């Protein structure tokens, strides 16, 4: 591990809170994410996981606190203070965002190839042949038959759509990917394939990722570290296998013991 680069956090959350009127969706969350690290945010619906993900990815403004991100020049910058061009750079290139519902992350009526190529064009690629070649190689990496490159994702199955969404996100070689229940709504067999694919891609590309999931098996398979949320607060955090095998908090013990054995 290159100590110099990896010793600096990529993203830092500092006492993040979000209120909707009197309702607190997220309260006083602080952590640092390092390069190559995968962090899972677990908890049941309504625990504030998705709100936190939206705060971290600058889609929601916090009521209090800050999110800072280390830009490619090595400088840690407050997301709230970024200019429009820098924000665009993050959304189009340096970050990926995988939605639970692929229809939110894809353009359903244009071809799969164009869905992947669009991200490249947004960062200035303009050679049709090269864009198509890169798109094809990414479809291959996510195990989509090249023969389907000209079909629109509305003709795809749920699992294929999710894999296409992943290709679209990773084609610009982001450093950080946000994922909101990436396997939610998929059949179990399709889930296993997607998880295996994600796990390999994250490892090969050395990506950092923040994954929101209510599924502890997903957290175990994908993440290095886990944060357990309840009522908008982080109640327990640590190494993933430590938190899942030796949970400390009553709520975490309840979550872990509620898994039905297969």
């Amino acid at each position, binding site marked *: *591990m290159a100590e110099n680069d990896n010793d600096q956090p990529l993203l830092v959350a500092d006492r993040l809170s979000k209120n909707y009127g009197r309702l607190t969706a997220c309260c006083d969350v602080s952590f640092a994410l*390092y390069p190559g*690290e995968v962090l899972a945010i677990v908890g049941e619906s309504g625990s504030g996981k998705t709100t936190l993900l939206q705060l971290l990815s600058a889609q929601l403004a916090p009521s209090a606190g800050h999110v800072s991100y280390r830009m490619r020049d090595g400088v840690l910058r407050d997301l709230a203070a970024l200019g429009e061009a820098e924000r665009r750079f993050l959304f189009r290139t340096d970050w990926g965002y995988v939605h639970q519902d692929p229809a939110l992350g894809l353009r359903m009526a244009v071809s799969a190839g164009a869905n992947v190529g669009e991200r490249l064009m947004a960062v200035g690629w303009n050679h049709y042949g090269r864009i198509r070649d890169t798109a094809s190689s990414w479809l291959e990496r996510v195990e989509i038959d090249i023969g389907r490159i000209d079909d629109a994702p509305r003709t795809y199955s749920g699992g294929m759509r999710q894999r296409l969404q992943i290709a679209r996100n990773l084609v610009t070689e982001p450093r950080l990917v946000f994922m909101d229940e990436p396997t939610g709504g998929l059949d179990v067999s399709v889930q*296993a*394939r997607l*998880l*295996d694919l994600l*796990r390999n891609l994250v*490892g090969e590309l050395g990506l950092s990722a923040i994954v929101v999931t209510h599924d502890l098996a997903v957290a175990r*398979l994908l993440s*290095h*570290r886990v944060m357990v949320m309840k009522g908008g607060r982080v109640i327990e955090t*640590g*190494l993933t*296998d*430590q938190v899942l*095998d*030796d949970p*400390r*908090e*009553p709520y975490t*013990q*309840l979550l872990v*013991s509620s898994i039905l054995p297969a």
Partner: protein
Amino acid sequence: MTAMIDIENAEKTFTMHLQGGVELPVVRGVSFQVGRGECVVLSGPSGAGKSSILKMIFGNYRCDAGQIGIRHGGEVIDLAQAEPRQILSVRRATIGYVSQFLRAVPRVPTIDVVAEPLIANGVARPEARRQAASLLKTLNIPERLWALPPSTFSGGEQQRVNIARGFISDLPILLLDEPTASLDAVNGAVVVDLIDEKKRAGVAMVAIVHDNQIRNLIADRVVDVTTFAAAA
């Protein structure tokens, strides 16, 4: 002796919040050292806390008090206090763990399950696979199974895959939780040979083995876990 593992007064209690907050003391005052090329076997009846101690040395169970010093590169890291990323770094470069059961990832072929720790440490895939193949052959896993995921294998086969995965890396510390439990005599002897090889390479090991014969073959020292009994 420079100790690779230096445990001092380590302590573990489980608090069962779902059972009305019952406190379950596991071990207390755990203290021992393991040097290079040495295999320490933990002994004691089931429930004495042998596996818990092994899991604490791997950072899988949290340690409530005391120290678990691990020589990692040029420094000593106290796993009882370490940050998650330090523990991950220790697992990547220093400590391997052979659990009793294989936790297999769906769909991944056996040969890649075994090769993965090398690939994670930067060894090229073909070379990692070559070493994995040679270890699988040593452990008598038939070549026709290598391309299949191990989830459908027999208990003994899965355990041998797990051993191959644990022994493939050149890590200076290995923790072995019942590595021979579901093996026949022939394969048990293969594991004893592999452990001897690791000793000659200077690897420090902590093992749990119930089979007396195998214990006598591999143990340089026995630590009696009942002396750490925490029951009040």
